[in-house]
């Protein structure tokens, strides 16, 4: 196949063939790319850190505006060594026991069951968007963050944190 063939010159055939390949000067492009790479390497952020916004109760912080429907349901999640206790102002109280302790002695919380319960709660009360997490002193920061993450993922985005 001669897909990329040169055009044939008719007529005399003695004309000098001119090259059809244009030479592009790539040096400025390389300069620009080098500068871009240097700048981007300096400003690159390799670890993506996110934030989970929480409010704290009892420190004089301004209260967020809530509608009457939201005020009707107060959801409280107590977490400690025994596990979770999910209670609402509607009268429900659900215990989610912990899964025991891990190899290093840390508490293993049943986050999957908590997520299921919170989603069930959210489907029953679609207007509910706030939850108060009450943690014991021994609960680690890692467990607290994972519980807040589960709450946010279940649709209860306005999380308040308080001690027991």
């Amino acid at each position: 196949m001669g897909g990329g063939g040169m055009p044939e010159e008719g007529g005399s055939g003695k004309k000098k063939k001119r090259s059809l390949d244009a030479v592009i000067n790539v040096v400025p492009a390389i300069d620009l790319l080098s500068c871009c790479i240097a700048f981007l390497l300096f400003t690159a952020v390799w670890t993506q850190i996110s934030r989970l916004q929480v409010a704290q109760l009892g420190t004089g912080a301004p209260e967020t505006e809530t509608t009457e429907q939201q005020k009707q349901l107060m959801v409280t999640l107590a977490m400690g060594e025994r596990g979770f206790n999910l209670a609402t102002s509607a009268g429900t109280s659900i215990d989610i026991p912990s899964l025991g302790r891990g190899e290093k002695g840390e508490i293993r919380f049943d986050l999957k069951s908590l997520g299921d319960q919170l989603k069930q709660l959210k489907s029953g009360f679609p207007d509910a968007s706030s939850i108060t997490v009450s943690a014991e002193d021994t609960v680690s920061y890692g467990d607290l963050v994972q519980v807040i993450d589960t709450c946010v993922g279940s649709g209860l985005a306005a999380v308040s944190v308080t001690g027991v």
Partner: protein
Amino acid sequence: MPIVTPGKRPAKRFEKSKILGGKMARGHKATNAELNVVPMVDMMTMLVIFLLQQFSSTGEVLYMQKDIKLPDARHGQMIEIAPVVAISSEQVVVTGVKVADIADLDRDSGYLNIPTLEERLRDEKKRWEFIHKSDPGSKWDGIVNIQADKTVPFRIVKRVMYSCGVAGYFNVNFAALDAGSAAAQQGLPPPAG
């Protein structure tokens, strides 16, 4: 002195003479070697695209520290620029300045506040007010980032949060590793959902 191409440069009267067997009179070989730069340009373009994807306009708000291992979170938001309270298993640091030892905090556990932390945060707030003095439109939002090791107990975090609230920082952000990047660091696929 003019710049000449490298190579043999005989004296002018020898250049065309046959005294050296005509070696000097031979045609000059081109000394410019042509390099194929297309693969290099391709590679640089790929690098630029990759680095542009990594680019973050907010920059690095929190610096990863050796003694602080952050927990993972899947539903976190983008981090904002605010004072950072770093809590490791040994000390509490505010914007690079140590304000308390964890051992001391455990010793005087009867109190809820941490005076040195409050003082430092009040200084930060005063600085913010001074900077925004001529800008009446800006509103104090009281944001503080708490970056704690995943093993730090809540009794310490609670005291830090209380001190932040007393100093006027009532909008607390807990720092966590984005689950996608955390999985990438450990060589695992990101969690589904």
